């Protein structure tokens, strides 16, 4: 009998005692920072802010979809304070579902128009911090090896000689690919746009799950052409991979990397300080230190010569309000599933 008590109490004690040992010492000020950009950029922002203000930053990095799922799941008892980075659609969706709060920073005067229009379409619940144009990149070695012509436009990708050489992500799983779908629809009109997607489908060798996977595969020679954001393609080129990026001649869409304050934040004051910090020109200029080639939203921030400048690319007037809404998204994705994905290749 004695043993049974001993065993059961140790078992029970152990199962629970290991836990709850959060052990964290509450510093004077702290900030729970959700980041959806690349890891080293997230670190740079966290360390820089910590150094300047003395506020302890707890960072957690996840993709924008994962972060959105987490904020939604935590909505009744939020753990995060500020959400920085990641493509704009989940930020807009979070605003739509009331998971984030509005904030008007004093630095708005320094920002580009596209950044402010992002804020406007979500009642100031989110704001643009960087932007990047959509396009594609190709592996120049593989292109030459297979004697393929150099593509320059969206419509070039429909040529039969590219069969099995093009990769894009599945718009059901990737925000990048959804931006592609929405861009094509806005560029060519819905009917012709879907004809384009059907034609493209014949040349696609694989729909990847993650948005930047096609260009990474191209970098390693596993694929020839990948439809991605141009800054992702530039990044592979800078690393030394034989990647050439193409801004399609018909014009193209773009993403707005965004930032939001989480509703019910426990450290709202610190979160607002971070918000202002992240919009400053000198802070945004530091993105180049980690090879982030997106276009900064502060007009005074430095850009790289390697980065695709938005002014030289023909950009469409992308309607973030409409194509970021869940209803339109669901409709387009269903249509793509029913009409494109089910086609034989």
């Amino acid at each position, binding site marked *: 009998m004695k043993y049974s008590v001993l065993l059961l109490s140790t078992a029970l004690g152990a199962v629970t005692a290991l*836990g*709850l040992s959060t052990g964290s010492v509450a510093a004077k000020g702290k900030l729970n920072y959700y980041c959806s950009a690349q*890891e080293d950029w997230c670190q740079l922002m966290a360390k820089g802010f910590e150094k300047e203000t003395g506020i302890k930053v707890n960072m957690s990095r996840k993709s924008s979809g994962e972060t959105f799922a987490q904020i939604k799941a935590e909505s*009744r*008892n939020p753990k995060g304070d500020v959400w920085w980075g990641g493509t704009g659609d989940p930020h807009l*969706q979070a605003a739509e579902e009331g998971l984030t709060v509005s904030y008007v920073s004093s630095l708005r005067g320094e920002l580009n128009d596209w950044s402010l229009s992002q804020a406007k379409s979500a009642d100031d619940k989110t704001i643009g911090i960087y932007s990047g144009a959509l396009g594609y990149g190709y592996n120049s070695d593989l292109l030459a090896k297979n004697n393929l012509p150099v593509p320059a436009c969206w419509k070039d990708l429909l040529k039969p000689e590219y069969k099995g050489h093009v990769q894009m992500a599945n718009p059901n*799983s990737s925000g990048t690919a959804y931006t592609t779908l929405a861009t094509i629809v806005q560029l060519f009109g819905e009917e012709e746009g879907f004809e384009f997607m059907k034609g493209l489908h014949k040349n696609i*060798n694989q729909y990847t799950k993650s948005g930047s996977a096609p260009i990474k595969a191209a970098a390693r*020679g596993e694929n020839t052409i990948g439809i991605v954001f141009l800054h992702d393609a530039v990044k592979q080129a800078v690393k030394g991979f034989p990647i050439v990026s193409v801004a399609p001649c018909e014009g193209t869409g773009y993403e707005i990397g965004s930032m939001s304050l989480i509703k019910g934040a426990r450290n709202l004051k610190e979160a607002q300080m971070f918000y202002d910090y992240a919009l400053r020109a000198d802070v945004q200029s530091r993105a180049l230190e980690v090879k982030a080639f997106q276009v900064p939203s502060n007009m005074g921030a430095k850009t790289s010569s390697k980065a695709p400048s938005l002014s030289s690319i023909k950009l469409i007037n992308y309607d973030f309000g409409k194509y970021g809404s869940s209803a339109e998204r669901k409709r387009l994705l269903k249509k793509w599933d029913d009409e494109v994905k089910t086609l*034989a290749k």
Partner: protein
Amino acid sequence: MNRTVLLWMIIGWVGFMILPWYVIEDGFWGLEWLLDGYPLDTDYGPAWAQIMEGGKFWLSPFPLFLLLPLAVWGRAKSDPLYSLILLVSGTGGLGYLLLQAFTIGIAGWEFQVLETWYGVIDRQYGVGYGGLLVSASFLFMITQGIAARGVINGDVFVVSSIGLIVAIVGMFIFFPVSRIMLSALQNDEGLFSLLSFTTKISHFKIWGLGCLTSNVGCGVAWNSLFLAIVVGVTTTALGLVFALVATRSGFKHRKLLRALTVLPIITPPFVIGLSLILLFGVSGVVTQFVADLFGLVPGRWLYGMPGILLAQLLAFTPIAFLVMIGVVEGINPSVEEAAQTLRANRWKTFTTISLPLMRPGLANAFLLGFIESMADFGNPLVLGGDYDVLSTEIFFAIVGAQNDQGQAGVLALVLLGFTLSAFFIQRRWLGKKSYTTVTGKGDAGFHSILPDRVKWPIYSVAAGWTVFTLVIYCMIMFGGFVEIWGLDHSLTFKHYITAFSIEITEDGFLWTGSAWNSFWTTITIATVAAPLTAGLGLLTAYILVRQKFRGHDVFEFGTMLSFAIPGTVIGVSYILAFNVPPIELTGTAAILVLCFIFRNMPVGVRAGVAAMSQLDKSLDEASLTLGATSFYTFRKIILPLLRPAILAALVYSFVRAMTAISAVIFLVSAEYNMATSYIIGRVENNDYGLAIAYCSILILVMLSAVLLFQFFVSDRKATRRKTLPKTKTSTGFKESIA
């Protein structure tokens, strides 16, 4: 008065009077609360202070339930009132505790209707240590009450163990999973709708059969099912091959082989997939070589079913091996010798005696391979191509552009349906036969050597597979030492330096490498989780095999459930369930440990069940007859004979805690980041060098841990005599396969 009852009563009172009732935001073990206004502060107060000072009047009935067990004073256990009193105290207390915990939450009343009836009420936070002890006290009052009624021969240890397991499995598996399953039944507006559920679950994306008639892909359900069956069968076969080579051949380097088969199991996800790409991808080494040699166009065959299959076989064969080896070793040689004495040749002995006796192992290994394949996430992600499987679809239904939790719930239901069917088919196949081969009777002799007909094919399969595994691992190790894997192969240490640099200053060591933080967290959590997982798993196995009680099968099913659910679903459901009171765990290390315990416990259970069904019940009966308690028997008789199973459970849970990803990715926090989630970040960034350097270090750590476990939990001591006895005595031939 019964000492156990008294003890649990005291524990309950400690929980009520001394420990903080609610969870403490800055952590209990920081002990800051002791200096910060305890006991009257409403954040830290024990229950009595919460009632007096904090206005939490609804806690006041607890003393009543806690005092009630005093009424058993002087009563005999056989007195019907004895058990009745304990049952009333326990069920009443626990029931009321749950009722108040689920109806009064972080914003007062949880249900709008209660607020309109009773008006606004104060809010309460998650249950802390005080509440925990009180709940435990109530729980064990119930089990003692049940035991006193004579259930399971009035064995308090067994009844309490069952009670404990049921309670925690309910709390950490059923409760969170039911949260996400409910969302499968909801339509887009969040209302329950059978129509939307039936449309969703019968969708062609799940059940489509396009692949049979054209080159459009089949539904995800068929894809997953087909893959899982092939993986289950093949890993079981390979596991058997390796187990035979390791135990029944004259092969000299058996130990090495054993270590080698463990390699894939300790490899973090993605790595096998990546090295397969570098070997067999379009620009892979092997592909290019073959293409140049025969003038072929490099193909994309790796991306899709063949690639996933290959990677999963590499990853899951060792699990089958770990299950099989315990069973193959456990077969009593005297049965085989008896067959040979009766003039069966070695082939006949193998096929009619050895192989049938391995059925529990085969069935369990298949089940594990099947379920692992169903729930695997990393390999399909890297190598899947257009071959969609359930696990990745679930993940992207939640985190992808759709953000459709309901769809994830529906897919999770389909997946669960498959795994549960596999579970029931496995049980039917094993049937009610006896596979007992380890008995208390003297069993003589050695395992018979394999017949040649079996030996050579097995040797060649094992050798081929070993070489393949070695090549993969050379690729991986190599990848950590080159500038950019696949592009610039100049040698460098820079990845290791970035991740694991240490600076020596006058203050001592400074861990400056970027990986140290997640590294130490991972080690700590895995070390805490492994023994708990193994202990819980084996205890469950003991109860399942040795005890007969009503609801036995439901109990078994419940303990297997978490394994059949993919990590992603567990991850999201843990956030949904444990982010709000009554149990607030998100952001702590505890949620990671708990997740690992309940995810990996089934392996301990399966290994334990497979090994235990070989132990003759007369062994424990002898011990029980001699007056030992069931706990003493478990500890002194069963456990020592279960060493291979303990080892398997320990190794597996330690390793899985270090390599799991899909559930973990939702549960890591800034403070408690895990190695795998750090590695994924590097892979996403195309920093393969750093990711692989980190993986190599992890592999080394796990390898040493495995050796360490092996050292402490040495082989089962009940092995046979090392030399043949001079005069042969006939041994009992009890082990017939009925």
